């Protein structure tokens, strides 16, 4: 276990270096003169911004020097200052937005797993029944629904038509002065649609995965043994099969992180939620390069850490790794 942990952590460094290299090459993506030429043709970026960009990234210096000075600042968590009129440090901007995005995504993740696991078990234990077929249809449609369209439809029905839910932001104006209960209720109402949209995207995939993992386990010999020794179906499914079927799901948890973070751009923009996705989108639209690059690096690091945590959970849950040499 200790060696496994150590190996896994050592692996982080080359990956982190790779992330910085790729982000760096995105900055230098423009053909010919880096950035400069593209921006000269782009009236959205003023001369002042161009100069700031040149000094910040040291675009007049040779490439390796640029890279190392940028990574050096990155290591000290200096992501530069935003190009927008407030010109605040990018790190501060990200810091105040990150909790919103993370907590929203955690709620979405809980909902996703909370629904996908029972759905998958139902579909697998009643294989080829109408229920299973219905779930399969739902899964295929779920795969194909564009999340932003779902967001629009929900907005139309619950927001515009029925008027049950607020369609933008996290709070009603003036809710600060309300009592705690009312304040939280207001917040919850604002969160319903974004959370639904955020979790819907991967719900289909997760339930399908859970179904096939469950089917896979059920066909194993030890399940037949458990049934043969007369255990009730309930014990067989929930005690013997489920625990083994859940194991691969932990890895999936890690894989779903980049999708969730990336998806936050869409629902945060549509529902006007002040999170990292919205900040990123605003950065893209106003060509606020330091913000864009900062979030790109942070997003990738978050994914890396998320994957590490998922792997560690897997190792903890799987006795073959927990007690093994690996």
């Amino acid at each position, binding site marked *: 276990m200790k060696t496994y942990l150590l190996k896994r952590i050592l692996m982080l460094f080359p990956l982190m270096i790779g992330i910085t290299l790729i982000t760096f090459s995105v*900055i230098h993506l*423009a053909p010919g003169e880096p950035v400069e030429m593209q921006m000269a043709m782009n009236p959205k970026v003023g001369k002042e911004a161009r100069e700031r960009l040149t000094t910040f990234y040291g675009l007049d210096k040779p490439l390796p020097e640029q890279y190392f000075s940028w990574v050096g600042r990155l290591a000290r968590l200096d992501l530069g200052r935003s190009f927008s009129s407030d010109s605040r440090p990018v790190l501060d901007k990200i810091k105040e937005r990150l909790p919103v995005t993370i907590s929203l995504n955690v709620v979405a993740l809980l909902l996703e797993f909370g629904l996908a696991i029972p759905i998958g078990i139902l579909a697998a234990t009643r294989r080829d029944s109408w229920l299973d077929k219905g779930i399969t249809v739902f899964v295929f449609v779920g795969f*194909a629904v564009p999340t932003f369209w779902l967001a629009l439809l929900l907005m139309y029905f619950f927001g515009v038509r029925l008027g049950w839910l607020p369609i933008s932001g996290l709070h009603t104006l003036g809710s600060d002065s309300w009592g705690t209960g009312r304040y939280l209720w207001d917040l919850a109402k604002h969160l319903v649609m974004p959370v639904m949209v955020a979790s819907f995207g991967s719900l289909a995939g997760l339930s399908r995965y859970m179904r096939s993992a469950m089917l896979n386990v059920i066909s194993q010999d030890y399940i037949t043994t458990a049934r043969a020794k007369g255990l009730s179906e309930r014990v067989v499914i929930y005690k013997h099969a489920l625990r083994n079927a859940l194991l691969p799901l932990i890895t999936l948890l890690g894989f779903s992180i*980049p999708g969730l973070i*990336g998806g936050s751009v*869409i629902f945060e923009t549509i529902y006007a939620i002040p999170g990292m996705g919205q900040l990123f989108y605003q950065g893209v639209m106003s060509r606020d390069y330091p913000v864009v690059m900062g979030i790109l690096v942070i997003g*990738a690091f978050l*994914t890396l850490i998320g994957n590490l945590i998922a792997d560690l959970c897997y190792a903890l849950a799987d006795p073959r790794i927990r007690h093994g040499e690996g």
Partner: protein
Amino acid sequence: MDLKYSYVYSIFWPRLKRNRLALAGGAVVMALFVISLLAPLISPYDPSAINAWRVLSPPSMQHWFGTDELGRDVLSRVLYGARISLKVGFVAVGIAVMIGTTVGLISGYYSGLVDTVMMRLVDIMLCFPAFFLILAVITFLEPSIWYIMVIIGLTGWMGVARLVRAETLSIREMEYIMAARCIGCSNTRIIFRHILPNAISPVLVAATLGVAGAILTESALSFLGIGVQPPTPSWGNILTSGKDYIEFAWWLSLFPGLAILVTVLAYNLLGEGIRDALDPRVKR
């Protein structure tokens, strides 16, 4: 080639044919090709013809899908939009498949350091939330459909690379590869002539599913205003107006979204059908 031919006709096609959902998906995909080709002929109106008298009119006999905020016919715009999504789907996936296959073949065949470096690159690329990476790159470029296609392709090859690598690893150990090596085939010849044709079937599945993914990504980008730029109609950018006029014009949101849903569903069903038909373990 004879053997391949008989495989397609005696095993693959009969198996695919029995899968009705996959056939339905295939039919929709074909229909989309026809619509894209014939868009100018079958569209009732010019997709960019502005009509100030018919702004935001609901679906009617003249305008089946209603009109948008400039009085343009939504049905015509949706039909023309099929062209964009088809183009994006195929070009982006073409790029992704080419890169992914090459990386996978080289990585699996040579193994060792080359393999390690390339697979770490795959790991690193997978760390970036794809949507962030695409948006970040676009920030530095002018929005254009060509950039979009190339970028979606450049950020979507990792899955194919892993698949092809896994296939290559097992094919490499086959006896016929040993035989080819014994008669003095060069590495390049072995890779492209003997391994590639045998490793390609999972790529076919991944590519079909990839088209669906690329169409979804393009529509999301266009919806956010960073993809296909108006007045060129794309399903995503029609939905942008759908959002702006959501309180007055539900038809602007409904129809382009349904078009995306049906298209993506069709590609997914076809892809899954191909997978089942290729998989000898699946019995029907």
